[in-house]
């Protein structure tokens, strides 16, 4: 919508939204600390991109569930002479799964906002964090296995 001042008649009839008011909600003011949903701001993106964002969320969420399952399996099936060894492997995997479960929604939300406002997609360091974390758990598991073999 144009916000150029009207020349004819000298009256600007274009509704000017006061700063802080939500698009689509001209009468509703936004508190400075109010966090709005993606539906309250910007333009609706192409549904294909919205759906792709949703599938990415689901993929992250499945990764989170996979980590929880791996942690539960480690706790159930690891047999070691070292006391607490199975917990050392299982708990980090499950905690990482919980973090990823929360992150998946945060990431979807950030992407949705960026698409609606036409901003660049936000950078995420989570893939790197996930890769390093899984690598560390794998190394710890390998060390525990070797130590267990040496002890027994």
């Amino acid at each position, binding site marked *: 919508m144009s916000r150029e001042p009207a020349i004819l008649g000298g009256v600007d009839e274009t509704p000017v939204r006061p700063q802080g008011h939500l698009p689509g909600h001209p009468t509703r003011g936004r508190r400075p600390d109010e966090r709005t949903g993606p539906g309250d701001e910007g333009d609706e993106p192409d549904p294909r991109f919205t759906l792709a964002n949703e599938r990415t969320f689901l993929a992250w969420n499945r990764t989170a569930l996979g980590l929880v*399952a791996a942690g*539960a*399996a480690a706790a159930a099936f690891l047999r070691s002479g070292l006391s607490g060894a199975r*917990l050392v492997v299982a708990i980090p995997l499950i905690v990482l799964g919980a973090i*990823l*479960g929360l992150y998946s929604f945060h990431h979807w939300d950030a992407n949705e906002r960026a698409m609606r406002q036409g901003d660049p997609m936000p950078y995420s360091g989570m893939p790197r964090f996930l890769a390093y974390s899984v690598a560390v758990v794998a190394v710890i598991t390998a060390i525990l296995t070797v130590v267990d073999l040496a002890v027994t």
Partner: protein
Amino acid sequence: MRDYEAIAPDGAAKERTALAWGRSAISMVAIAASITKAGVEAGEDALGIASAGVLVLVAGVMLLIGEQLSHRRHATNGSLDPTTTRAALALLSIASVFTAVVALVIILAT
């Protein structure tokens, strides 16, 4: 050359998304089985089976949500009120954190 944009304007994105919801629900069922096994192995049969029951229920809800979203999108040609999607995804996110907490409780209780 055929106009594939006219035949499938969304490139089957709606269908792929519906399938992704189904896969997520199946993952939840697999975790329910894994947690039941962990509970039974540790001698906590009741805790394991109760947790698995809740998780299977969550998986059923996920399937229903995915199906509902897919159905509404077919009706609106892909467009959907973002608040609905936001609520559904927030619910799934909470469910996965809940699953992690259940797994931790079972492991630490045994």
